Structures are given as C-alpha cells and as structure tokens.
C-alpha cells in the first residue's frame, strides 16, 4: 500500500501557506456557523461555495471540509450554553450538556466534547484514508447499470431518512429530479421544460437553489419569530474546561463507541451526523450502568454523540469522494461544488486528481488539530459571537445569500431564483417536506438519467438489466426495499386508521 507516499503528497499540498490559511478560515467560520442557531453546515457550505470559485479546487474543498468539521464542534457550544442546538447534529447534546451547564459544569462539557470530537474526527479521517482507495478501486469496474443502481440507492436512502413523512420525502426527491431535467438534454440536444425562457436553457442552477432552500429558507423560518435566548455564564479558562479524571474515566468508552458508530453511519448513504448523534446517545444510555443519570447531566451523553457526529462527518466524505454519492445533505452540496469546479466525483477522482483527494485528507488532520486548540482555548470568543442578536444577524445572512447567489455567474436572475427557492424552502420546512432530498436529486438527476439511458442502450432485456448483473442487482434491490418499506408502512397506517371520523 502506498498510503504513506500519498499522504506525503497530501501534506505537501495541505501545508502550503495558502491552504493552511484556507483551513484556518474554514474552521473559524465553521465553528461560528455551527454555534449560531439558525444556520447549520448545509447553509454554511452553500454560502461559502461562491467564494471558492476563484481558487484552485483543492483550496476550495479544504475550506468547505474544514467548515463542515468546524460546524460539528461549534454546534456544541450553543447546545450546552443556550439549550438550543446550533445545528441539528447537536440536538441531543442539549439534553445532558445543558444540565451540566446548569450545574456549573459547562466548561468540562465543552472541553470533553472538543476532546472527543478531536479523537473521533482524527480517527474518522484515518478510516476515510484507508477505506476510500479500496472502495474507489472496487467502483472502477462499475458500468452504467451499476452507476444507476448506486444513484438510485443513494437517492432513496437519503430520502427515506430525512423528513418526518416518507411520502413527502419521496415527493421532494422526484421534484428535484424533475427540476434537474430543465434545460438542454446532453444526449439529444433537445431543450426541455424551459417555458420559452432563455435563462432556463442552461437549466436550474444548483447554487441559487441550494442557497435559497437552506440559507434563505432557514432565515425566513427564523424571521417569522423574533426573540433571543438567555446565555448561561461560565468560566472558560484552560483549567475550567479541562475535564477531570473522573470525567475521562466515564467518557473514554463513550468516545470510542461514538467514533466507530458515527463513522459507519456516516459512510452509509443517507444517514449523516444528525442520525449518528441520536444513535450514539441511545446506545450510551442503554449501555450505561447508571442510565438514570442521563437527562440530568451525564457527561457520556455529551461525549458519545459529539464524537459520533464528528466521525460521521468524516465518514460522509467516503461515498462522496469514491462513488460520487453524498452521504449527507452537506456532502450533497459539496458534490455540487466539485462539479462546478469541473471535477468528476467518483472512482476516477483518486487516479486523476490525487493531489485534490490527498490534499483534502491531509488538510482534515490539520483542521482537526486547529479545531481542538480553537475549541479549548478560544471558547469565550465564540460565546461573545453568540451575543450578536438574531435581529442583526438575520439581515446579514440575507445579504450573504444575495451576493452568494449573484457571484456565480453575475446575474440578478440567479438572485431571483434564490429568493423563489427560499420561499419554497420555507414552505417545505414548515410542511414537512425534505429540501435535502430535493437538492440531492437536483445534483444527481442528470447523472442518473444518463446512466439509465446508457444502461437501456446496452441492454437486451430493457430495465431488467438492472437485475442481470450481480452488483447492480443487489444495489437495485436495496434501493427498492428502501422505498417500499416506509411507503408500505405509511400506507398500512393510513388504511388502518379507518376509524369513524370524529363528529
């Protein structure tokens, strides 16, 4: 294995002054975005994406990946101090983290979370580094049927797990696929669904949609209600933050278990850091010798989930880099970025752009080290940022959304698109649809269509080709099960509730 040679190449890329600076920007902005309620990793990546267009793709992905890792750290701060999750992967941290803060132990809660996150993030990158080349080599043998089956699996699993209503999730996904059909068809050259509007010939742009659905949509949901939260005061000197020996004893296995669980969940298409953190919390509570302490400030309830979400954010990069299938909503947006930089995500990425892939992997080690220092030594700085009232933050985020949408192709048309999708994203959120599924489908749509059409051209049995080749057959079957199980369950529930309507 030439992992070490590759890693050396990676560090030679990641340690150039500009890339170190970019990683620094990513972790600081990421921690801030994670800490601020109302914007999370997805909107953060979508909003920062336009700034990367002038850079080499490697520097671009370094910023975004560092930002992603940073949000996983930053979300903890808000959960512990305000009892409001800074982003969705820190929801469970509120339960025991806030209790610890009420007991005056906010420092150790944040310190343990940072240390656990560092351990999990670093191990996650090691696993990412060891696993990705193998997976990429395996995926090199994929033809169009396998590619299509894989995309189908990615789409269906992401959709099944996001949103609280399976049907609404699938509807969101199909809408995304439909939107991705707008514009020129690459194979035939036909213009589809443009409504005669010249701007639509290039298709629905990914970036304004992503910024609209996530950035603007979240701002609108927040704008509806104004109000501030109370921040608990605590001391954040190094001695206040460093966990005690007893904390360590209680947390070390929680961190180890959270890391493994988080990474596995992250790699699976569809389940990202949020689900990983929930599973880790449940697992710790089940395994604990004193489950009654959970909910009353058990440090394992912070250490486990916070480790899991960091490992998961590393794991989610594996399918994105090797297969071109994102493992979470955030990596779906990153995947869109990769395509905009002119890279083709998938197994060939490792052969054609080794400096990109290994530079990214090496920079993740650097980013995690920076984040540990940042989140142990500079907590007061982020706490101060939390005092920035939402009433000032909200208009600022909108300005960011506007400039971000505009700067991709310098058209106000894109800002209009962003606004339309912002309103749509707000509505989808309110009504339980899944913006993440829509964006993922928008990214994968053209690729899935091409793979399907190529499969059908080489097939002599129509769609059955998806079941004739072993890998494709397994993937397709899994994808169909992923659709069928929740839909059948929902249908049975709907039919079973045929009790007479209340008068």
């Amino acid at each position, binding site marked *: 294995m030439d992992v070490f040679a590759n890693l050396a190449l990676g560090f030679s890329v990641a340690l150039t002054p500009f890339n170190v600076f970019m990683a620094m920007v990513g972790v600081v902005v990421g921690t801030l975005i994670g800490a601020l309620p109302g914007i999370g990793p997805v909107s953060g990546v979508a909003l920062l994406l336009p700034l990367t267009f002038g850079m080499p793709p490697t520097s671009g992905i370094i910023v975004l990946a560092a930002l992603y890792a940073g949000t996983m750290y930053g979300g903890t701060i808000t959960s512990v101090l305000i009892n409001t999750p800074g982003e969705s992967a820190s929801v469970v941290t509120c339960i025991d983290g806030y209790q610890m803060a009420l007991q005056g132990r906010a420092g150790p809660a944040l310190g343990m979370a940072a240390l656990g996150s560092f351990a999990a993030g670093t191990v996650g990158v090691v696993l990412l580094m060891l696993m990705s080349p193998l997976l990429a080599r395996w995926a090199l043998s994929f033809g169009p049927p396998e590619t299509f089956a894989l995309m189908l699996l990615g789409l269906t699993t992401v959709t099944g797990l996001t949103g609280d209503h399976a049907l609404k999730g699938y509807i969101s996904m199909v809408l995304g696929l*439909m939107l991705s059909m707008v514009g020129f068809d690459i194979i035939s050259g036909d213009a589809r669904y443009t409504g005669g509007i010249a701007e639509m010939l290039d298709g629905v742009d990914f970036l304004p949609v992503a910024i609209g659905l996530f950035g603007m949509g979240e701002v609108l949901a927040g704008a509806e209600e104004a109000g501030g939260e109370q921040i608990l005061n605590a001391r954040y000197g190094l001695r206040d933050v460093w966990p005690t020996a007893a904390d360590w004893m209680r947390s070390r296995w929680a961190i180890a278990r959270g890391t493994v669980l988080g990474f596995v969940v992250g790699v699976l298409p569809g389940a990202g850091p949020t689900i990983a953190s929930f599973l880790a919390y449940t697992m710790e509570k089940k395994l604990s010798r004193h489950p009654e302490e959970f909910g009353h400030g058990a440090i394992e309830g912070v250490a486990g989930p916070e480790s899991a979400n960091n490992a998961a954010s590393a794991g989610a990069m594996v399918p994105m880099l090797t297969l071109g299938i994102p493992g979470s909503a955030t990596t779906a947006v990153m995947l869109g970025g990769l395509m905009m930089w002119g890279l083709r995500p998938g197994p060939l990425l490792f052969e054609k752009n080794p400096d990109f892939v290994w530079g990214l992997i090496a920079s993740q080690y650097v980013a995690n080290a920076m984040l540990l220092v940042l989140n142990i030594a500079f907590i007061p700085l982020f706490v101060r940022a939390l005092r920035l009232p939402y009433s000032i933050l909200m208009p600022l985020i909108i300005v960011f959304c*506007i400039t971000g949408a505009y700067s991709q192709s310098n058209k106000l048309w894109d800002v209009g698109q962003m606004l339309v999708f912002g309103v749509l994203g707000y509505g989808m959120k309110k009504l339980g649809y899944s913006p993440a599924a829509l964006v993922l489908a928008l990214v994968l749509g053209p690729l899935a269509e091409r793979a399907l059409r190529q499969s059908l051209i080489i097939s002599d049995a129509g769609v059955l080709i998806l079941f004739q080749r072993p890998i494709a057959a397994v993937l397709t079957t899994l994808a169909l099960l992923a659709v069928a199980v929740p839909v059948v369950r929902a249908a049975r529930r709907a039919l079973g509730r045929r009790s007479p309507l209340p008068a």
Partner: protein
Amino acid sequence: MRLADRIAAVLLLAFGAGYALTAARSYTYWGAHGPGSGFFPFWLGVALAVLAALFLAAAVRQPDPGAAWLPDRRGAVRLGVVVGATALFIVLAPLLGMTLATALFLLGLLRFLEGHTWRVALGVSLTTAAVNWAIFTWWLSVPFPVGVLGF
C-alpha cells in the same frame, strides 16, 4: 396541516400528470438508438403522480386536522417584509448599484423591521456594504452591478 396536505397532493398530482404529458407529447420517448429525451421525464411525471395519489389517499383518510402551521399575523407581516425587501433589492440593484442597494436593504430592515437605533442600523449597513465591496469587487473582481452613481 391536513388541509395543506390535501391541496398540495392535488396540485402535485396535476403537476406530475402535466409533466408526463409534456414529455410524451413534446419530446422523444424512444429514438433510433434507445431512450430519448422524453423517456426519463415521462416516468418522473408518472412517479410524482403515483406518489401524489397515495399522499392524497392518506391525507383524505387522516382524521386529525393536525397542528396549525400558518404563521400568525405578526409572523406573516415579518415574512412578507423580508421577502418583499429582497425582491425590491433585485429590482433596485441595477439602478443603484449593488453596494448602495445592499446598504439601503440592511438599513431598512435593521431600522424599520427590527427597530434598532439609527446608529446601529447605519453602522452595520455601511460596514457590511463596504466589506462586501472589498471582498467581491476589489479582491475577487466579481462584476457587481454598478448604479447611476458609479459604484
């Protein structure tokens, strides 16, 4: 929520059917060499229609009207102002230039929607517009719309 689900289901059903029909009528379903430009969209339309029909069936049988989801009056006004201001921005940016439009947009929202003092509102909006200009126009040389005033 139940009413919203029913309305959405009907609209989605119609949209899916229309989408599939357009694909079948205007684009090639199957060409000389295999599936054409209408093939995938046709089945997408069908898929949406089927999902929407299932969704409609579930929403019709749903006995529970569900939680209210529409914003209250104050929330609706705030939403309307934010969306309206952003739309106004798009209209005014080519006339005023991006920088001035940004400053005015922020000033308006901060002063009149959020009720900050003139000092805070002016400070934040002018600083942001300047920083924005510095990053995008000066550093990244993104061609922002320039207004009648020349910036």
